[in-house]
């Protein structure tokens, strides 16, 4: 007599298809993600309820932190090279092609112009060591405007030349930074007739605006 077979549904599901899909997505996200460079000057930005994101392109960021140290960075490698070229004309310091290429990869920097070559020559890890870069001088010397002022102007011209767009300026300040340092930056911006700029903030997590 034949046995009665009770068909049992198997509890294991074939995971192959799911695995395929998930790895496809994973590959996609890895490829589209932009590698984030470490900030040379890490700051803790204050929180606000604003929802507008910082734009990616045509943006110059002035980072203020660590008791008034100023760092400057501009978006786009080509813009950075052009900015450096303008600055090298201005201060008559030549930069080699290699140095320009290395500078193009630097997200931000905070050294007086005289020390820029040294910083460019360093590798990424050494460059971003905290406390190494003293900040860009922001005080005007005699009748000459400050170096930070010159960098911002150079970046604005470079953005205009390469992307044919106005550069937006963002101030990224540490929450504990005293107001005079921020005021200095605002004064430099207003000195170039930039009356509109952005303050970089975090998103406030708790339900604050109620």
């Amino acid at each position, binding site marked *: 007599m034949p046995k009665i077979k009770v068909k049992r549904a198997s509890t294991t599901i074939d995971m*192959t298809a799911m695995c395929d899909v*998930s790895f496809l997505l994973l590959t996609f996200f890895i490829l589209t993600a932009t590698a984030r460079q470490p900030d040379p000057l890490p700051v803790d930005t204050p929180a*606000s309820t*604003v929802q507008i994101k910082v734009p990616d392109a045509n943006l110059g960021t002035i980072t203020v932190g660590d008791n008034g140290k100023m760092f400057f960075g501009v978006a786009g490698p080509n813009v950075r090279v052009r900015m450096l070229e303008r600055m090298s004309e201005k201060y008559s310091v030549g930069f080699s092609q290699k140095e320009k290429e290395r500078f193009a990869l630097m997200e931000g920097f905070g050294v007086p112009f005289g020390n820029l070559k040294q910083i460019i020559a360093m590798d990424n890890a050494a460059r971003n060591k905290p406390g190494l870069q003293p900040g860009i001088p922001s005080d005007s010397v005699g009748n000459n405007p400050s170096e930070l002022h010159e960098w911002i102007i150079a970046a604005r011209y470079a953005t205009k030349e390469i992307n044919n767009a106005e550069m937006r300026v963002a101030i990224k300040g540490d929450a504990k930074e005293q107001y005079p340092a921020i005021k200095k930056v605002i004064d430099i911006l207003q000195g170039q007739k930039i*009356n509109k700029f*952005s303050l970089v*903030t975090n998103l406030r997590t708790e339900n604050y605006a109620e």
Partner: protein
Amino acid sequence: MAELNTGGKQMPRVDLTPMVDLAFLLITFFMLTTTLAKPHAMDVAMPDKDKENKEDQLEVADNRTMTILLGANDKAEYYMGQLEKPLEGPTVTDFSKNGIRPVLLKKLKDVQAATGKSLIVIIRPSDKSNYRNLVDIMDEMKIVNATQYMIGDIGTAEVELLKRDGIY
């Protein structure tokens, strides 16, 4: 007698569940880091600063202006009208939900009702205030929907006032 399954024809199967787990974990990580890492930006428009004629100050009605002075220790002080003869205040407050916000909301309404025009807020940060205070007060302006506000410089008389109230 126990049966031995000796039929070696079965395909070797690998359990893919941990692999899928890992893949989804990584997907989540990449998704979060790419979209959420972007900081937010608060747009600020400063009044045009004319270096030639600094005396060219805008005259506004006293009953429409509210001045907020930012002092030390996350405290602020506000008054209506002019410093010499304030219509109200000066009162010390802070940046929390129950600090300056109810005052602003009330004033916005009062001024609108009394004059038919909107309230003008002048923010004067002192040297002892920090960047967080500035962002907080700007944020507060956004929250209460104050459209007319500006950041100005603080004067000596106002610093004296902050000193008197112990927040400088």
